[in-house]
């Protein structure tokens, strides 16, 4: 006989567990992935759309996201734009590094406690260093 529907069980949420590197990297993978999906791909479309529409659209894109040349609203959005762009570059490096970690976990390697912890921390170290080097290269060359 069909059973009466009852509420599905929910797994314990964040506050239940003691935080560790593996947990942090797992959460960061989801946060950075969704950040890249919404903000990153949105910005990618704005960029390519502006580039396709002509010099004025492209200049408007640059002014709103980076230069703030028009003053007023653009000054504020350009400041926000710099934060978002640096954040997105970090999100890409973090998501890529923990994505590679996931590919390695998928083949069954890296589950020993110390190795798992080490490689979790390594993804964060990598993403921070890569972000700093990337922007240093862009701004200082």
């Amino acid at each position, binding site marked *: 006989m069909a059973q009466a529907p009852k509420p599905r069980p929910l797994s314990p949420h964040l506050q239940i567990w003691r935080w560790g590197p593996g947990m942090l990297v797992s959460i960061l993978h989801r946060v950075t992935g969704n950040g890249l999906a919404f903000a990153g791909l949105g910005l990618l*479309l704005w960029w390519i759309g502006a580039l396709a*529409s*002509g010099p004025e659209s492209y200049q408007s894109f640059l002014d709103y996201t980076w230069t703030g040349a028009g003053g007023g609203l653009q000054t504020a959005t350009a400041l926000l734009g710099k934060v978002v762009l640096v954040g997105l570059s970090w999100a890409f490096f973090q998501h890529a590094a923990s994505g590679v970690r996931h590919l390695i976990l998928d083949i069954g390697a890296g589950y020993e406690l110390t190795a798992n912890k080490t490689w979790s921390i390594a993804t964060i170290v990598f993403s921070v260093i890569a972000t700093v080097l990337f922007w240093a290269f862009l701004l200082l060359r």
Partner: protein
Amino acid sequence: MGNGTSIGRVRGLGSSHEGTHHWLTARLTAVGNLVLITFLIVSLALLPDYTYATVRGWVARPLPSIALILIMINTFTHARMGVQVMLEDYIHGEGGKVAAWLLVNIVPFVAAAFGILSVLRIALGGA
């Protein structure tokens, strides 16, 4: 859970048997993104300046055009799957599930189509 009978599956409570394909496609597009986005950010970082002429001239070249069209397909496929999994974890109401289903099955396709058209306009010299 479904109770293993046909009616249990009809009610949408059993396995859809699409999990493996979803999982594998996520991995495949992940590797694609690793290559494509690395190409994109290294290429952009190496451009001499970011004026309209320089950037548009770069996009119009064959290899960047192809890479960008592939990016529009690959990133939106990957993002769609990731956002779908996130929404499945957090949205439990029936109305919300329908809204989420519409979101992940419409928005990424419209967005990717816009992106591909933009690259084509640049690559083929239209305005």
